[in-house]
């Protein structure tokens, strides 16, 4: 099962190391972690995508709560949430294939953000399956480099706190 957690943490040095270290040493799987500022000064929002069975998912959340720098853990399965990832992919493309690629990416609402003599960079955002599909279509042209941000997500509507557990020792 896949789980996306939205974790509010103190914007402190090493807070990423604390979270990543915890997940690693407890043998939890990490698909991606993305970190950035949150709506509140002094706090960052980490979005963690992870996999495991129900018991493991519960343990991940409980163990995260034990970190003093973790303020809130939100299980986005409990909410309707918007989930996005940004993909940058450098594809082999000469004068003959540029237009073709442009046509392929159009339905994905992706855009070409850089053009070189032998390659171009496609930028796309969306949920993972959409990005995977795009990647598959671009494969035949030769994928030279890929950079992905990992998933970030936000619960919909005004229900900000939702079912979040409060911090515990």
């Amino acid at each position, binding site marked *: 099962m896949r789980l996306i957690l939205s974790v509010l943490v103190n914007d402190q040095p090493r807070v990423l*190391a604390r979270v990543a270290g915890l997940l690693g040493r407890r043998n939890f799987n990490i698909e991606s972690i993305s970190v950035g500022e949150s709506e509140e000064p002094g706090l960052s929002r980490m979005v963690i995508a992870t996999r495991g069975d129900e018991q493991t998912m519960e343990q991940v959340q409980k163990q995260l709560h034990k970190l*003093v*720098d973790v303020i809130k853990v939100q299980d986005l399965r409990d909410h309707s949430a918007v989930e996005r990832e940004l993909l940058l992919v450098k594809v082999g493309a000469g004068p003959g294939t540029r237009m073709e690629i442009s046509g392929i990416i159009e339905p994905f609402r992706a855009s070409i953000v850089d053009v070189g003599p032998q390659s171009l960079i496609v930028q796309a955002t969306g949920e993972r399956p959409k990005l995977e599909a795009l990647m598959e279509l671009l494969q035949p042209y030769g994928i030279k480099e890929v950079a992905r941000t990992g998933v970030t997500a936000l619960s919909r509507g005004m229900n900000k706190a939702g079912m979040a557990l409060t*911090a*515990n*020792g």
Partner: protein
Amino acid sequence: MAQRLAMPAERSGDLTQLQREYSGSEILLRCLIEEGVEVIFGYPGGAVLPIYDSLYHGAVKHLLARHEQGAIHAAEGYARATGNPGVVIATSGPGATNLVTGIANAQMDSIPLVCITGNVNQNLIGTDAFQEADITGITMPITKHSYLVTDVRDLPRVVKEAFYIASTGRPGPVLIDIPKDVSNAKTDYHYPEQVHIRGYQPKTDPHPLQITRLHQALAEAKKPLILAGGGVVSSGAEKELITFAEKAQVPVTTTLMGLAGFPGKHPLWLGMPGMHGTYAANHALLECDLLIGIGARFDDRVTMGRLDKFATGAKIVHIDIDPAEIGKNVDTYIPIVGDVKKSLSASLDGLPRSRSQAWVKQVQSWCREKPNTYRDSDQVLKPQWVIRHLYESTGGDAIVTTDVGQHQMWVAQYFPFAKPRSFITSGGLGAMGFGFPAAIGAQLAHPGTTVISVTGDGGFQMTSQELAVIALSNIPVKVAVLNNRCLGMVRQWQEIFYKKRYSEVDLADSPDFVRLAEAYHVKAWRAENKEEAVRVWKEALSHPGPAVVDFRIDSEENVYPMVAPGKGLDEMIMGEEES
């Protein structure tokens, strides 16, 4: 009894007068005094020179260990004997890394510690400077929390928070790393009166609904059992546990960390469960229909990792202050998140008596018919006999510390502890070399109590340098070395599981412990048989200062009962019949 040394105001000495601004090291000392710290265990070095300069006034008692590992284990011993945070100071680099075993030990056993390390000046951090180690990074997985102080103005808040985090909720070690320039920097001093940490608010009150469910389950139970762990001791819930067990008529088994949390002579006590547990405790775990885990974490030395053979017919109730423990190892029917003492108190009101009459008779007959046994001898000294003798000679009125291994298990099996915090052991981490320095800390906390460090010839050699400390400060710890000339527990496993291929367990060329002790000016004796053991132990006990007794025990003796790794609790290898 812990003797309060002196109140902060009387002890602050030179610090009360003078400046408006204080250095970081002076502020640190003032904070420690505010927190009521009676004794600091430590070892100086370059990065803590300013801190040791502040200690020069003697405002807080400092015990100079001979190795940082000795210092932190002594701080742990103090903390385990009192429940108050132990405080240890070490310098940067190797001083700090020498604390690692003790920090991990405290983390595993939930012991409150405040570990203060110096670090190099901030402009040198990250440059591989002399005696630089990233101790906050190194200890991140083994601390409850840690701080690297970058601004002297943060220091009072950090110290206040560190003591609060270490000692509340599920206790644990907190590290404060202080770069030397922060110790030297000056600022004005205000100690915060309150602490508010947004991400740390331990829940101590149990949910009333779950207490009601516990009552219902108890009223229906015919074969209830309590599995009590270290949480009973750390929350000070011994009285509540006794009342609970008696009122509801539930037998009690105590984990290694729970020993002394329930009286070893109580008719409802079944002994320790698990790998070297009693027949009664293990069979009660196999057959119970309601298992109430109280401040215990169902670890693999209790369950043997064989959940298919662990309390399979039982509903499991789990009381613990750490929500992450609930459901971690076993599926829980009734989760009770809260302080053990508060949870037990809350459940005493309206607590039903379970329908356990036949069950209690059954488990008590197991205790009678299948006690722990060993074959005694008049030729060689048997370790179990020695432990019994330590018990009888003190009437059980002693604090006993151990390392890990055979001697630890024999103490757990043959010394029925009566008083909470009278058994101090390295439980979760299983660290050799822990017991002797821990005894020093326990003795400082309880100067009038007999403190016995039961150790092995292997473990004693890991921290025996602390003999210098007990000699110099005349700390009357009694060290009982169960000397079998080998690494007993490893030898036992090699005998049973590796076809007697004894690989690197022979310690026959160890030093003469009597002469070793004497070299440190500590009185010492040797005993090779019962008669000598009785005589020299009496002398050691009545000697007013520290003492070492080298009990030369049977080197072939094994710890039984035993459940082999991978086996269930139903497959116990029992000890030899008493002849």
